[in-house]
């Protein structure tokens, strides 16, 4: 599978990119696609309308309304801003920490490396959600806290990947020659080694975004993440929990959106990995 365009020939990549692009587009253009949730009017007349109905004020509700008469589609689109934003920023933080730890451990293989690897193994052995709950309970819950906590508990896979790559690259001739030319340690690491170790990081990050979005929703679902009335997919699911019987669409819609985005991120990650590692899985 040579060539730059071949990623798009993989149906998994096409699906993943299309769904993610649509979700991001919807989040960015939320004010054009939906009513600002804080501006919604008549509560009593528009409560619990099923999907595809029109209210007394001729407002059309694609996905129906919730118990406060709020349009579920609008909340979903505005929630996408929060959920996708939190997921992306958390993964970015994980990538930064993971690359720093992994690169340092792979480059300075002596005592520093051992300590950093031990730290990574320790962090990997912790049950992540339990730790998230503990942290979220000690500080005031907010979107910023969720980003920090998810970032601080998600860097280990990336650190391990980068560590392996850096160790392998550090022994390669082009690195030796850079050292022989008198280039200093940190500069060799940043200019010569890390750019070559980026590809597996991209795959892990794509898979991590799905996971982070799912965890954010989980924390918000338990009331420990993004606080209502700010909509996030997690607290939207939670708000639909009590109305499962008479308004099942309130909890169903954000869940379907969440699953679609996580599936898209996972398939895109799979496709990129298979393309980077042609000997690997997925080939028939």
């Amino acid at each position, binding site marked *: 599978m040579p060539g730059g365009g071949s990623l798009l020939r993989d149906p998994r990549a096409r699906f993943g990119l299309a769904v993610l692009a649509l979700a991001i587009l919807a989040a960015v253009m939320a004010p054009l696609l939906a009513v600002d949730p804080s501006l919604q009017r008549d509560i009593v007349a528009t409560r619990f309308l099923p999907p595809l109905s029109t209210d007394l004020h001729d407002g059309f509700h694609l996905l129906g309304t919730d118990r406060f008469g709020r349009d579920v589609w609008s909340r979903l689109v505005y929630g996408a801003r929060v959920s996708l934003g939190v997921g992306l920023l958390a993964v970015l933080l994980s990538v930064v920490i993971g690359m720093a730890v992994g690169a340092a451990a792979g480059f300075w293989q002596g005592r520093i490396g051992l300590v950093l690897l031990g730290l990574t193994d320790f962090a990997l052995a912790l*049950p992540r959600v339990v730790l998230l709950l*503990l942290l979220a309970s000690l500080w005031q819950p907010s979107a910023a806290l969720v980003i920090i906590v998810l970032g601080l508990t998600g860097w280990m896979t990336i650190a391990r990947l980068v560590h392996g790559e850096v160790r392998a690259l550090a022994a390669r001739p082009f690195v030796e020659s850079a050292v022989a030319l008198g280039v200093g340690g940190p500069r060799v690491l940043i200019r010569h080694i890390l750019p070559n170790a980026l590809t597996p990081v991209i795959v892990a990050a794509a898979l991590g975004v799905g996971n982070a979005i799912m965890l954010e929703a989980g924390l918000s679902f338990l009331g420990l993440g993004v606080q209502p009335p700010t909509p996030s997919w997690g607290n939207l699911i939670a708000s639909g929990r009590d109305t499962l019987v008479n308004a099942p669409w309130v*909890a169903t819609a954000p869940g379907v959106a*969440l699953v679609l985005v*996580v599936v898209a991120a996972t398939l895109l990650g799979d496709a990129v990995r298979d393309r980077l590692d042609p000997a690997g899985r997925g080939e028939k």
Partner: protein
Amino acid sequence: MLSAFFRRALAGLAVIVGVVTLMFFLIRLAPGDPALLLVGPTATLEQLDAQRQALGLDRPLPEQYAAWLGRFLRGDWGSSIATGRPVRGMISAAWPATVSLVGLSLVLSYIIGIVVGAIQATRGGRLDTTLSVVTVTLFALPGYWLGLMLVMVFTYWARALPAFGAAGFDADFLTGWDKVADRLRHLALPLATLTLIGIGGTARFVRGAMLDVRNAPHVAIARAKGLSPVQVTMRHVLRNALIPVLTLLGLSLPALFSGAVFIEAIFAWPGVGRIMVEAVGARDYPVVMAATAVSATLVVLGNLLAEALTAWADPRLRVRPSGEAA
């Protein structure tokens, strides 16, 4: 082999001590008076003073830390702010429910996941594609949402299965098979939720591992000497592919416990996870701390078990220090 296992156990112990250490410093870093956090806003002045003394807030930090570690490892976890009951009693009543739920779902999701992954890797074609779509969707389902959807369908619409707790209100009056049936009906939805999600991850992994092994030289030889496709798959591909799967078993335990936290909260399953979620909601710190430590311990024990299994399945991995007889 024993000494290698001993080393692993020691590393596991280090993880548990690490978790307790982390908690000590987190409660220090959190805003507010640590003693007040631990006794709660309704405590009397005497209780507050007693907690201050127990924490040794007037003594130097290393001494405080040593006292905390000692108390925690001895199982002296204080009492719940919300209920006043000793934390140790609450946890020891709850962990069997968590272990049985997680253990059963682990076994079921691995059996089904391995079968599905093996079918995908051997049959290929459209069946493989269809099952891939199914497994990636299962993998992406958030447990709490799948749980809600199952409750909606099986409890509210079909009125077939109970959605809350581990036993009915009349459980004490039931005998024999009725009691077993009641238990199973209550287990059905939480177990199905946790298992369905587990199947996705396992099947995806098994499929990949089998496709990797299928191209190995020893499989080509097995085929060349005329073994039937079934024999090749069962004896030469699946067996070798299962070794990384066993390693995954250990790695997936933290995730499974994490998943169980949400599932227990949704289904009011009386395990450590539900206690934890309720305690977090009520800012009941002694309980949160103990539940965190117990979860970490269960994960460490599970990892040790998975490693022992892997060593048993793959003789190459048995770490034998030089000098010990083979």
